[in-house]
């Protein structure tokens, strides 16, 4: 069965055709990053307007790339949350119109669960139980998936999400937008040992994260050097910041893997593209004989293939929505 996936939760407009939840026939992603660059972050109203302009051409292209027409589509899967409400509504409106006209099932997919799903899409041999670290512009969540595939959130950030912290620091340091890839790039050139920053909550025996303290520490560090008339060692600062973020994430992820006795860890979300994080988590997992899965860059970013793929699983369980459905900006990963 061919499922058309639609994703518009943040600043990527995406549509995809996936066969039987497993074969990606097309995955068209139109990034709005250049439209948000002047503001140093995603502007919700700008994002919503762009989604409206792009959604129909992107859907058209996803069908053309897959070599199919609307009449070949067996169901429509769409992100219903979490995300920016105005952005989500554009995708849901389009998905409803398609499902209604074709008279096929409509499936409302959890965006966060779909990010984790991206790992199964690329590695069909992957089986739960596993621990998932989901890091993106809006989320930092540690979750466990049991043998049956049921997700339970172990902990999440109490303040800033990982990607949000990266963007804020990058903006403060006058770096290019988006901040994540830029700090990751500079960090690889710097020495993390030269700028030691706090590892918030690393010794707490729960799975909560906090990044606002780290942000303040960077601000204080920079203003101190400025007062002394010293130059800011950007590369070392980026490396120190990144190390502080990653150390906590790796430590908590490994602790969860130990507590739940899993042999698989998966990375998910936009920040999963971070080379430093991937390398550090791989090293820690290898040491314990645990297999780490991380999606390719195309499936780390927001994309509709993961929505269509997870939608297929929902459909098998009979989890569909009707024409009265609404988007949910605050939909949690697990209830």
């Amino acid at each position, binding site marked *: 069965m061919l499922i058309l996936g639609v994703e518009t939760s943040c600043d990527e407009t995406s549509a995809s055709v996936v066969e039987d939840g497993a074969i990606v026939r097309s995955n068209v992603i139109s990034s709005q990053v250049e439209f948000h660059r*002047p*503001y140093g972050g995603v*502007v919700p*109203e*700008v994002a*919503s*307007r762009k989604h*409206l*302009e792009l*959604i*129909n*051409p992107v*859907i*058209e292209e996803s069908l053309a790339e897959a070599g199919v027409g*609307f009449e070949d589509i067996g169901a429509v899967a769409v992100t219903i949350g979490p995300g920016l*409400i*105005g952005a989500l*509504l*554009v995708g*849901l*409106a*389009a998905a*409803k*119109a*398609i499902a*209604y*006209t*074709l008279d096929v099932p409509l499936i409302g997919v959890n965006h966060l669960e779909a990010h984790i799903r991206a790992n199964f899409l690329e590695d069909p041999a992957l089986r739960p139980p596993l621990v998932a670290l989901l890091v993106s512009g809006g989320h930092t969540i540690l979750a466990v998936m049991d043998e049956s595939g049921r997700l339970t959130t172990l902990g999440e950030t109490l303040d800033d999400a990982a990607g949000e912290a990266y963007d804020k620091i990058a903006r403060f340091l006058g770096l290019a937008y988006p901040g994540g890839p830029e700090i990751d790039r500079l960090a690889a050139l710097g020495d993390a040992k030269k700028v030691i920053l706090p590892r918030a909550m690393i010794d707490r025996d729960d799975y909560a994260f906090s990044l606002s303290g780290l942000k303040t520490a960077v601000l204080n560090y920079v203003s101190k050097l400025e007062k002394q008339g010293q130059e800011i060692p950007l590369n070392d600062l980026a490396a120190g910041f990144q190390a502080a973020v990653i150390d906590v994430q790796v430590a908590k992820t490994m602790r969860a893997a130990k507590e739940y006795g899993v042999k698989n860890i998966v990375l998910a979300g936009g920040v999963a593209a971070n080379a430093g994080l991937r390398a550090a988590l791989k090293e820690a997992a290898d040491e314990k004989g645990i297999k780490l899965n991380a999606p390719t860059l195309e499936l780390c970013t927001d994309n509709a293939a993961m929505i269509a793929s997870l939608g297929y699983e929902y459909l098998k369980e009979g989890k569909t929505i009707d*024409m*009265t*459905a*609404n*988007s949910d900006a605050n939909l949690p990963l697990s209830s």
Partner: protein
Amino acid sequence: MKVLAFDTATPVTSVAVGIDGAVVAEISITGDKVQMERLMPMIDAALREAGITVRDLEGIAVGVGPGLFTALRIGVTTANTLSQVLRVPVVGVSSLDILAAGIAYRGGLIAAAIDARRREVFAALYCVTEGVIGIIAPEHVIEPGTLAEELAAYDEPIAMVGDGFSAYCSVMRDRLENRVTLASPEFMYPRASSLLMLAEPALRAAVPGVPGLVAPVYVRQPDAVELIKKMRR
């Protein structure tokens, strides 16, 4: 020609089905932030009442605002996507034009206004001569007091229509006194039946089988865009 028309620019969502120039079904529902939950079921109900299915449609007409941004996007995205899947033309009509068309039978000057929140309205001014509606002032965003001044420049009586005037009726009356009359409540929101009538000629003229892409008329820039402009000045 079988046409589906709807407008979601205001807290009243209105849907109509027309067949060969006649309105065969019309449904309107009042409610803030209900467009996502109500629009498709309303379309389904209107089509059922008209005795046709979505596959029978030969054209789509949609109100493009100005109005509530989020609600507007739900309507316009729905219209564009129906046009895309059905491969039929789509026509966008100003929601202020739709308001004016609803009381065009009165003739003379008609001012239409939609509440833009933040103590402003989206407004336009029309003149109906021998049944033909002409635009005197196109859509713009304006404070009610300033709009009253604008309208005071005309000597003739003016009919006011739209929720922008129901909200600021006293501001208008204070300045314009009995030179203005407020349209009765059933005309105060853009009705899909009026939209049908306005869009029909354009739909008939459109190339059949070719989908379109309609853009909302926001009038206002996003706040962040305005902020950056101010900072650069």
